[in-house]
């Protein structure tokens, strides 16, 4: 990681994006254990505290699922299938293990397909609840404790509360830095493009937390040095909402039309960074609360407010804030086929965000570039409409 010096963060991000997992491979060669995870529910703090490298797994939108077809049904979320296919093809042959969170049917119901096919030395299904009431938070703490114990057993090292607290601080710092970088998208034109930002986000999730923070810091310095930004101040400012978008293909499709992608509510993007873990006497409590209550993802049921409007604010209020803070002109709601958790939210998100002042284009797609031309046409028509 010696090549990240101040001022060349974007080039480093580009490298880690293009050669995804290269750092994990290096660290593995030097004796570090590498554990893969699949979604925003992967408790990175605990993995960091265990001394292993957590790496969020991504697929490849340009590569068709082939080998994976022999094991996993086509009704499974296309993202999950694509990552599984990559794993079966050996792209993640540096993994020592994986933790699959209980997130959605596509992940839960294929847990055994993953574990029995890949047959990695370490496997853990993290049985997180879908509800965030008080008994569920206490339960989550216990589920995290089981995870801690299983990692201890696997690594042979005790994971102390102090180590967890330290990892929490390191990941909070990482999140803060990323938020600082997101802030640079608020100007018009934004100081960093959506494509660049996606590369940084993807690179960041493949690195040890300190290196990820160093990378972000470096990008911030570099990007700040660009001010004042050049570009068309009248171009439309777009936000994207969705789950596992970890490739620049869609972002390029948006920005090639002349629009700016200035914000996201993606589980690979802002969702990972907007909410910190509170320091609590039992550090697992703070982690449980962050993942269950603060992280607003559709797989956790939220609905305690007394009115429907109140419930919508609880669920989607952050999207309204983003629209205002990032001066968003239009929103693209990008949902994968076969995704029940996000799919059932589409009408509610669409009407809520539109009421907040930003028109919404809903796109249902595969995790594949094969449909990109159609997607681009729809985006162009949308931009014309909001022009």
């Amino acid at each position, binding site marked *: 990681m010696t090549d990240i010096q101040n001022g060349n963060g974007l080039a480093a991000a580009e490298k880690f994006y293009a050669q995804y997992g290269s750092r994990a491979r290096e660290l593995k060669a030097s004796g570090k254990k590498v554990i893969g995870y699949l979604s925003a529910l992967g408790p990175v703090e605990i993995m960091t505290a265990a001394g292993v490298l957590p790496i969020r797994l991504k697929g490849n939108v340009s590569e068709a699922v082939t080998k994976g077809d022999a094991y996993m049904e086509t*009704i499974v979320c296309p993202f999950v299938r694509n990552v599984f296919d990559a794993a079966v093809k050996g792209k993640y042959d540096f993994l020592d293990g994986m933790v699959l969170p209980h997130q959605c049917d596509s992940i839960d*119901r*294929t847990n055994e397909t993953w574990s029995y096919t890949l047959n990695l030395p370490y496997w853990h299904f993290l*049985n997180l*609840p*879908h509800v965030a*009431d008080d008994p569920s938070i206490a339960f989550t703490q216990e589920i995290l404790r089981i995870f801690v114990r299983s990692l201890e057993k696997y690594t042979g090292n005790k994971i102390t509360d102090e180590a967890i607290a330290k990892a929490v601080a390191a990941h909070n710092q990482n999140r803060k830095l990323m938020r600082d970088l997101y802030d640079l998208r608020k100007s018009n034109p934004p100081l960093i493009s959506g494509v660049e930002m996606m590369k940084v986000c993807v690179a960041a999730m493949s690195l040890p937390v300190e290196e990820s923070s160093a990378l972000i810091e470096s990008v911030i310095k570099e990007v700040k040095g660009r001010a004042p930004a050049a570009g068309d101040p009248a171009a439309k400012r777009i936000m994207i909402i969705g789950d596992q978008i970890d490739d620049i293909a869609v972002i390029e499709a948006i920005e090639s039309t002349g629009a700016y992608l200035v914000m996201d509510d993606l589980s690979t993007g802002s969702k990972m960074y907007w909410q910190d873990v509170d320091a609590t006497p039992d550090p697992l409590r703070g982690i449980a609360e962050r993942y269950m209550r603060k992280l607003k993802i559709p797989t956790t049921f939220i609905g305690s407010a007394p009115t429907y409007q109140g419930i919508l604010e609880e669920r989607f209020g952050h999207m309204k804030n983003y629209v205002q803070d990032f001066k968003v002109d239009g929103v693209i709601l990008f949902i994968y086929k076969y995704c029940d958790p996000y*799919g059932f939210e589409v*009408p509610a998100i669409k009407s809520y965000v539109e009421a907040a002042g930003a028109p919404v284009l809903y796109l249902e797609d595969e995790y594949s570039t094969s449909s990109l031309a159609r997607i681009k046409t729809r985006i162009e028509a949308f931009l014309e409409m909001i022009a």
Partner: protein
Amino acid sequence: MAEEKKGRAVATSTAASIPKFVRGNLSATLKAKEEGKKVAAAFIADGQDEIMRAMDIVPAWGESFSGVCAAKRDAEKYLQKAESDNFSRSLCTYATCNIGFDMMREELGHAPEGAPWGGMARPDMMLGNGQLLCDPRFKWPQATQHYQQDVPVFVTNMYYPPWDPSGDHHEVEALYVKYAKEELHETVKFCEKITGKKMDWDRLAATVELSDKTWDLFIDTYELRKHHPTPMDTGDAMNTMVPLTFNLGTQEAYDFYVSLKAELEQKIKDGVGVANPEKYRVIWAAGLPSWFALGDFQYFNGKGVVFPVEVTYRGCEKVERLDLPKTNDPLEHIAWRWVRYWTHWYDAAKKRPGSTPKVERIIEYIEDYDCDGAVFHSAFSCRSWHAGIMQQAATLKKVYKDIPILIMEGDIVDISSYNEADTHNRIDAFIETLAAYKAKKG
């Protein structure tokens, strides 16, 4: 789900009474208002049945309603209605069919014309469950609330330990039971708030006891199907599951199985089987059926193939086999029953390297019911039961025997991808494999 246009003649006369149950459940929701009862949109296999029954809350089963629409081949207009507000066709069609219906009822102020048996009443509450079973169980109520904004949603959460061959589920069962019990308490609190009535705990205890008895009777009845020739097959079971699945905790459900058991005993005595002659016995190893094509079971039967056992809708076990710890708290009992229902195949799976509880369950049934092959149905709109089927089929072959397996592809509600001729061709090919397998087996 019990009445289909393509008339599948049920083999047992008891099963013929099922449409009455289904209709009764739907019309109970419509009558509830006159009777001063509250209606809850609810889901099967959520562990909440007894709470509702003990509190006189009338369940409105969306899954049943969608199944009926599918069986009548009348779901398309509801699916299209949901699609018109951007619900994807790839989502669970039980949910989207029902949401489409709810959307229409809200717009019209009454059930749409031609809704099966008058449709379902507008609920006073929606009870979901974010369990290990399926996403729509908590996303669907939330989605419906968008159109019925004044109807409160409560989502409970009932989990069971995940299968982990390297761990010991016995160590964590108590944690799961504690959590499930607490969540059931939350459900009771919510229901008390909506109904304005306190839970009658003695009545709940009696209801739970009745459910236990029904579970036992159901298994005793179904185990009669081990007989050669089998007196009842899965085609009927897709009907006879209704009382257990939708009317648990009621006397009618219990009485239904008393009659069914008597009829099966009589058939065995008379030597009457589903197929004549019965050539091949096959397990329905996973998957909800295509409600619009239940006639396919008859097609199998016509060729001498019977299904003496199925995994689908067998949501119970003899209670004594679960070895439940004694408790006076009915909610704790429900919680233990729930957790053990799922984990009681784990020990068997541990004993067979490479196996899983789901596969172990299939093996147990294959052996107990003397089956020669397995049929799975992979319905495209429900990941919950249908993702992971390929893995189960492969594991079954690997850890057990290289038995003939057929994985059918289709849907539960959406008829658009169904082709009868193709399906029958695939069934014919499967039967040829069965014949070859049996000939080899001798």
